[in-house]
């Protein structure tokens, strides 16, 4: 699918693959999504669909071959420092849904838009019983300044060396030139129920994850 998209594909196509019991729905797709591929796209063209592994389509943009965390899988635990330098483990959030969003870097235009959008909708996430965690490779000091400047009410974690990003298999964009922008929604048992990838329409991450949480 990504193989047939041009370098700058502007159509906002999303493919959401929700919980197994729900109907998978496609919005505005122009071409069929191969169910067994894991790819990154710029404009939210697809998400990780199934639990089975499969080889990449030849012209995919993504950098890692296999997504290591797929929908339906239990997300691997990690412990990273937050913006105050305190270690935070993912397992601490078990018992409630968590939105884990990987973003390229603090103080970049897209990430700022995304962070502010999560901030502005934070109450809605809380109402849905969910917590929000942002993860990038920036250090705690950078996160602290970023969170303070934009008054972000949620936790930002410092993934030094992008270890967790690699462990989770977050695909890069532009042949790995850019860290990918991918969001995972974990249910209260820590199982991944939604993965959304969109590098250049960051606000859509909020729309899609909220839509999913409300429908859950």
């Amino acid at each position, binding site marked *: 699918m990504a193989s047939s998209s041009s370098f700058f594909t*502007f159509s906002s196509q999303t493919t959401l693959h929700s919980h197994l019991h729900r109907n998978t729905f496609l919005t505005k797709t122009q071409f069929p999504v191969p169910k067994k591929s894991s790819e990154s796209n710029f404009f939210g063209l697809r998400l990780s669909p199934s639990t089975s592994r499969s080889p990449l389509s030849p012209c995919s943009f993504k950098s890692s071959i296999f997504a290591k965390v797929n929908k339906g899988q239990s997300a691997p635990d990690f412990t990273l420092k937050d913006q105050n330098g305190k270690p935070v483990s993912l397992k601490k959030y078990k018992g409630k849904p968590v939105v884990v969003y990987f973003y390229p870097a603090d*103080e*970049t*235009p897209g990430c700022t838009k995304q962070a502010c959008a999560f901030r502005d909708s934070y109450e809605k996430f809380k109402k849905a019983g969910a917590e929000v965690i942002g993860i990038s490779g920036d250090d705690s000091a950078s996160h602290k300044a970023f969170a303070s400047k934009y008054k972000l009410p949620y936790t930002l974690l410092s993934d030094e060396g992008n270890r967790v990003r690699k462990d989770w298999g977050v695909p890069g964009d532009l042949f790995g030139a*850019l*860290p990918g922008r991918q969001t995972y929604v974990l249910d209260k048992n820590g199982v991944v129920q939604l993965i959304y990838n969109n590098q*250049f329409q960051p606000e859509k991450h909020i729309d899609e994850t909220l839509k999913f949480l409300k429908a859950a």
Partner: protein
Amino acid sequence: MAVSFQTKYPLRPITNVPRTHHRSSFLHVRVTCSATTTTTTKTQPNREKKLVVEKRFVSPPLSNDPTLQSTWTHRLWVAAGCTTLVASLAKSVIGGVGSHLWLEPALAGYAGYVLADLGSGVYHWAIDNYGDESTPLVGAQIEAFQGHHKWPWTITRRQFANNLHALARVITFTVLPLDLAFNDPVVHGFVSTFAFCIMFSQQFHAWAHGTKSKLPPLVVALQDMGVLVSRKQHGEHHRAPYNNNYCIVSGAWNKVLDESKAFEILEMVLFFKLGVRPRSWSEPNSEWTEETDLSSSQA
């Protein structure tokens, strides 16, 4: 006020020494006032210090400022540039007639016009976002662009050769070798229009800052037709977030480049690969923000 941005530009040296530049009477101190407003408990002294720096920073050029007027050197460069263009055009026409070709050179000419718009956008984006006055070769131009953002209206006060001479110099050095090396009418069809549009892009740019009532009717018509960049479209470039509408020949590429986020992509790649932050990512500071209070007194 913008503090941290200075530390995030590894390629931009922070200069604290006031510059005495014979050319630019209005560009004295590079922005260092931001460096004074660091986190401190004593806000009052810092504010005063900042105001002092701002006062001796700049004042906009007056209409009769010599820096806006053309010199004979400027005129010579414009003449040289035009000569190389005419030579290229002549080679294209004469060669085309001789070879009974007209469509291919004409198409090449059109391609030159189209690509010049794209080229103007890419160059403008680069100059607006990266480097500073100490950058080799283009430092003076970068400084001039910064000054332009601060006082956009001054471009309409620049005399013709003053406005174009820098580009004319580049065109002379580029097109002259091509004139000497090639005779192909198609090549020269492209070169002559591409180079003409690039050289005169500053004039198109100045017209885009003009007011409808003061511009020649033909210019207004060409702007309205989209042949030249429109006043409205270029005006968008001078408004926050200052990261769009970079093309200044016809402006035809602006929509494509902005909607495709081409420059945003390039900026992100440069940031992650080279660690350089474009100026447009920072909050508007004194370098970008137009001095509207002074503009009304200058107009």
